[in-house]
């Protein structure tokens, strides 16, 4: 596949390296001459100096035959414009933008960027996983509908302890998929499954309902 990367910072550099090793054709667009040189020295001629938001540079880079276009600079507005120019002027089928301000995720989607990677959210999620007392852990976010898989620990003293699944008022778009209990095999809960303290629940939910689900299962 032909992949164009805008921004030769550390994200652009390691992404380029990884994609090259997978055998893809990769081109990096970077404004800074010193950064371009580093690519030249270490990875060969994979970097063109220029502004990845400029149509003339993108034309030169052969953007119209690119399969994927990835904007990785640390300025959200630059990533937005680069992806929009690639999409609307060069009809690139898949555009991916790095986002630093998590609030921009929704805006970018609305403005026709195909995929967004929120760096700040990723870091937060990984740190959450490392804090054992955190009641809700994000395991996976899927697709456009903002569906996510989360793990929730039922704490001692939570109002959910001793209740059956049907007694809980779960958000409509949330499903409890699995109950993991110490020393037992994980099982799919039924309406009559009674929750116990220290149960770990794997649930399917959405970004909007996550908070309501967390409250229902861990509230006291």
């Amino acid at each position: 596949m032909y992949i164009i990367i805008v921004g030769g910072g550390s994200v652009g550099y390691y992404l380029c390296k990884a994609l090259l090793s997978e055998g893809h054709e990769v081109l990096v667009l970077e404004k800074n001459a010193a950064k371009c040189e580093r690519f030249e020295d270490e990875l060969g001629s994979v970097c063109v100096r220029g502004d990845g938001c400029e149509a003339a540079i993108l034309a030169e880079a052969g953007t119209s035959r690119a399969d994927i276009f990835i904007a990785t600079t640390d300025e959200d507005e630059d990533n937005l414009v680069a992806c929009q120019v690639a999409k609307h002027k060069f009809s690139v089928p898949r555009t991916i933008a790095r986002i630093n301000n998590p609030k921009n995720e929704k805006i970018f989607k609305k403005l026709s960027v195909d995929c967004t990677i929120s760096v700040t959210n990723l870091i937060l999620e990984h740190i959450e996983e490392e804090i054992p007392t955190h009641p809700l852990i994000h395991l996976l976010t899927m697709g456009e509908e903002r569906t996510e898989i989360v793990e929730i620990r039922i704490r001692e003293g939570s109002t959910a302890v001793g209740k059956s699944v049907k007694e809980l008022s779960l958000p409509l778009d949330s499903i409890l998929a699995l109950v993991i209990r110490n020393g037992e095999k994980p099982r799919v809960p039924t309406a009559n499954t009674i929750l116990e303290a220290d149960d770990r629940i794997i649930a399917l939910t959405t970004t909007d309902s996550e908070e309501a689900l967390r409250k229902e299962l861990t509230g006291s």
Partner: protein
Amino acid sequence: MNVIIMGCGRVGAQLASLLDAEGHKITVLDVDAYSFRRLPPPFGGTALVGDGTDEEVLKKAGIEEADAFVAVTQGDNRNVMAAQIAMHIFGIPKVLCRIYDPLRRDIYEALGLEAISPTTVFAQLLKGKLLAT
């Protein structure tokens, strides 16, 4: 008319004071409070420190009640992003955007943004003046 102007440079400040003098309700946004020195003393509108590409800041500036939004910061991409937020997220009926790069202006004009390239406008003006003699 209720107008939000993003960017209080020479153009933004002058536009703000012209509209203010005609009795319009003006809010000027800039990331640097020092820029507001350009607003003349009789300016009766609101000056707000904040980034116009941030939804929350726009809400604070009263974008939900605004009739028009003008993006005139130094950065083409910032202007483009803020103008699109005003247009597509908040549904502002009149959105104007400065884009220095003529090629980029053409792309966004095609996407429905009312964009002005001072580069093109000024070059044409100069050409007209030169050839008129």
